[in-house]
C-alpha cells in the first residue's frame, strides 16, 4: 500500500509542478486562472494520497477545506478577470 500511495503521491507532485510551470508561462490570462484551479485540485489529490499512505484522518480536513477554498478562489479570480473588461 505504501508503494502504491507513494507512486500516486509522486504523480500528484509532478502534476503540481506542471501546474506551476503553466502558471508562469506566457499566455492569455485565462490560462493562468485554469492553472491555478488545477493546482488547487492537485494539492487536494496529494493530501488524499497522503491519507491513503498514513491511514491518518488528519489530512482529511485539508482536503475538504482546500477543495472549498479552491473553488472560491477560482470564482473570485474569474470575477476580477471580468470586472476589468466588463466596465462599459
Amino acid at each position, binding site marked *: 500500500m505504501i508503494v502504491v500511495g507513494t507512486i500516486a503521491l509522486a*504523480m500528484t507532485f509532478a502534476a503540481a509542478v506542471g501546474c506551476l510551470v503553466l502558471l508562469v508561462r506566457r499566455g492569455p490570462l485565462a490560462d493562468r486562472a*485554469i492553472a491555478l484551479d488545477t493546482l488547487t485540485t492537485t494539492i487536494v489529490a496529494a493530501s488524499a494520497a497522503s491519507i491513503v499512505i498514513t491511514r491518518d*484522518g488528519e489530512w482529511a480536513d485539508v482536503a475538504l477545506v482546500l477543495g472549498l477554498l479552491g473553488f472560491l478562489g477560482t470564482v473570485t479570480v474569474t470575477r476580477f*478577470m471580468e470586472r476589468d473588461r466588463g466596465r462599459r
Partner: protein
Amino acid sequence: MIVRDVLAGGLLLAGAALAVTAVVGYLRLPDAYARMHAATKPATLGVALCLLAAALRVEDRSSASKLVVAAVFQLIATPVAGHLLGRAAHATGTPQSRYTVLDELADRDDRDDP
C-alpha cells in the same frame, strides 16, 4: 480488508493518473477554451476518486465522512468553476485557435448588465 485496500489502491492510481492527464492535456491543447476541458474534467473525477480511495483507507469514520463530502463537493462545484472560467475567458477576449468552428458569443455582448 484486502479487497478494500486493493480497491483503494486502484482508485488512487486512477485519480492520480487523471490529475497528471489534466496537466498533459493542458500542454497539448491549442487554446484556452480547449484547455479548460483538459483542466476541469479529469481533475474533477481524478480528485473525487482519490478522495474516495482515501475514505476507504482512513481508520476513523469522521474523517471518512469528511472525505466523502469533499469528493461530492468537488463533483458539484468544479463544473460551475469551469463555466465561470469559460465566461471570464471569453469576456477578456482570449484568442481562439484556428480549430474554432463557431463562436456563438461573438456577436452577443455577454457583459452582465448592471
